[in-house]
């Protein structure tokens, strides 16, 4: 027992939390009547419950974590709901036009402007970066069984080199952007964004739900992004395998 003082300390601390959580946290909940939750809330929670099926269960390795939804089968909405959504959309559009969100915290290499439905991301320092795609970067650890289905032609006036990979169940994109032209809308509506480092480079990651993620980072020369439904760990591994093609 006395062999690992650190573990003892940890255990003692945990026991201390055991005995204080009631008075510090639980009993501070206001003693008021229960609330009757709205249908809107119930709907959102049901959707979340479906999403909870896809909480990442595995760690490490480029392994595809689960079976994604069938294409096109995700939503079946009634006319009434469609009308309600359209009405809400119109209102949101107006509200969005009226209220511009403030810039986000501390993403050093990125300049971000947040709106209700999305965030606009641009490069925060592109002074010394190439103004064209001079060097091509590729993913060097491609998983088996997935094909490159699209790649664009690059010329002096092409601001980004893009690649799209797909098979029956999985898909992901990989893009390389000239920094001064980088200007992208990313889906941050109810999708949390947080810091991430890819090979030591500053970046951010967006959790899109259903095991889909969007990752972007700046390696000093270019901005890259990679996005798909292959699970967070697999996506990070692919991102970390990105390298310049040496001629």
């Amino acid at each position: 027992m006395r062999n690992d003082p650190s573990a003892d300390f940890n255990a003692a601390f945990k026991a201390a939390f055991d005995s204080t959580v009631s008075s510090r946290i639980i009993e501070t909940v206001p003693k008021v009547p229960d609330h009757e939750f709205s249908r809107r809330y119930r709907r959102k929670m049901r959707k979340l419950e479906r999403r909870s099926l896809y909480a990442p269960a595995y760690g490490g390795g480029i392994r595809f974590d689960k079976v994604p939804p069938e294409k096109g089968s995700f939503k079946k909405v009634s006319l009434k709901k469609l009308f309600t959504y359209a009405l809400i959309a119109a209102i949101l559009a107006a509200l969005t036009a009226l209220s511009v969100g403030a810039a986000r915290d501390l993403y050093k290499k990125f300049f971000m402007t947040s709106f209700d439905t999305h965030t606009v991301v641009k490069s925060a320092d592109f002074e010394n970066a190439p103004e064209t795609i001079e060097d091509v970067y590729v993913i060097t650890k491609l998983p088996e069984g997935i094909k490159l289905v699209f790649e664009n032609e690059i010329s002096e006036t092409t601001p980004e080199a893009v690649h799209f990979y797909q098979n029956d169940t999985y898909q992901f994109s990989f893009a390389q952007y000239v920094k001064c032209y980088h200007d992208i809308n990313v889906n941050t509506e109810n999708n949390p964004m947080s810091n991430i480092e890819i090979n030591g480079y500053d970046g951010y990651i967006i959790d899109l739900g259903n095991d889909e993620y969007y990752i972007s980072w700046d390696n000093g020369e270019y901005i890259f992004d990679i996005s798909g439904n292959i699970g967070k760990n697999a996506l990070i591994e692919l991102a970390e395998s990105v390298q310049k093609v040496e001629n």
Partner: protein
Amino acid sequence: MLSIYLAAIDAPEEKSKFKKLYQLYEQDMFKTAYEILKTDFDSEDAVHMAFTNIIKHMEKITETDSPRTRGYLLITVRHTALKVLEMRNKIVRTGNTPAERLDDFDLEEYVISGIEAERLAAVLKTLPLEHYEILFLEIYMDMSITEISEVLGITYEAAKKRLQRAKKKFGEMAKEEFENAE
């Protein structure tokens, strides 16, 4: 009308776990959020947002019905509600005092081996709430700084600084408590 749901009901335990969680705790979470936000609409949003967050760290919850889990969910929703309030009022929360230099603080320095949980609890009882909450997440929930930053909705650096501040304060109060007890 039956919507077509996903074929992959491969984790039925996870499904009922999530349902159990909100059935057990959504009322308390709502009441906590309501105290801050004062409207049904925003408070429901805060509870939903908190659960969005909680799903990402589902593996941290080992028992659905326990004070530890209740505490974790309440801490999460409190910070989600504060974030909603911040966005509503367009306040930028200043978490960092730039001039402050915080060295890496080792809590164990202040704890002589043999210290029991009761003594630590005595300090925890009066430690300021925000410090209590972040130590709860790190020690009781075994969370990393990155995970803590996600729960609190702040950057990695801000979470690191807040954790250091909490440990420092705990250490100061612990020192006082143990010296008085001698």
